[in-house]
């Protein structure tokens, strides 16, 4: 298991190849890459702030939770911070499991936790204005759906 927080770009293809080469006993590897989107057509860049003392430990905790919950063989999380241009990769997760359902579910679970519980904040910077990205109710709902607590 590995969780990395970094400012520098990463090569998602190379990361996937290295991840897969290291895994034993997996019949399924799932990867997800999040990319800076420009919905308005005038985004200059995305600025991602984080809480250095907390971030890496949080990512490691979520990766371990995912491994335990879905019996994953391995998991990888990479998340960037700083200034990112449209089209640049923000983050990736990779999961390896014996079967595809656990690999997909593990990646989905990790993404839901990264969205709402990892201490990152995104700010969209355009030529004429800046805006902190607001959290979405759907993201909290997605997280709640994984909970073992009884649903109301």
């Amino acid at each position, binding site marked *: 298991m590995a969780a990395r927080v970094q400012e520098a770009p990463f090569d998602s293809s190379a990361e996937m190849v290295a991840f897969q080469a290291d895994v034993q006993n997996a019949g399924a590897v799932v990867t997800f890459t*999040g990319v800076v989107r420009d919905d308005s057509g005038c985004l200059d860049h995305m600025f991602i*702030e*984080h809480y250095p003392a*907390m971030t890496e430990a949080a990512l490691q905790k979520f990766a371990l939770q995912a491994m335990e919950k879905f019996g994953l063989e391995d998991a990888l999380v990479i998340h960037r911070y700083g200034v990112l241009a449209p089209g640049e990769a923000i983050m990736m997760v990779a999961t390896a499991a014996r079967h595809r359902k656990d690999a997909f579910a593990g990646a989905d679970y990790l993404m839901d936790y990264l969205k*709402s519980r*990892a*201490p*990152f904040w*995104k700010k969209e910077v355009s030529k004429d204005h800046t805006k902190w990205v607001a*959290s979405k109710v759907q993201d909290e709902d997605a997280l709640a759906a994984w909970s073992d607590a009884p649903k109301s």
Partner: protein
Amino acid sequence: MKLDILYFAWVRERVGKSQEAVDTNAKTAGDLVDELILRDEGYAAAFSDLSAICVAIDQELGDFTTLLKDCREVAFFPPMTGG
């Protein structure tokens, strides 16, 4: 009790600083906010809607009722938007 307070994202922008050291008698994170908002308009603006603010105590997520006993670092920030 001496502790460090960290602010992130728009909470940091409204308060006007990313970090400060304070000496406080606050028992909970909520008590600490009550002290801070008396300081100036920036703090009052940052903490005007506590439902929009998250708290971490010594790098663990908590809430405004979490006790600060023996803690060294409190962080205030908006809901997280990673991924």
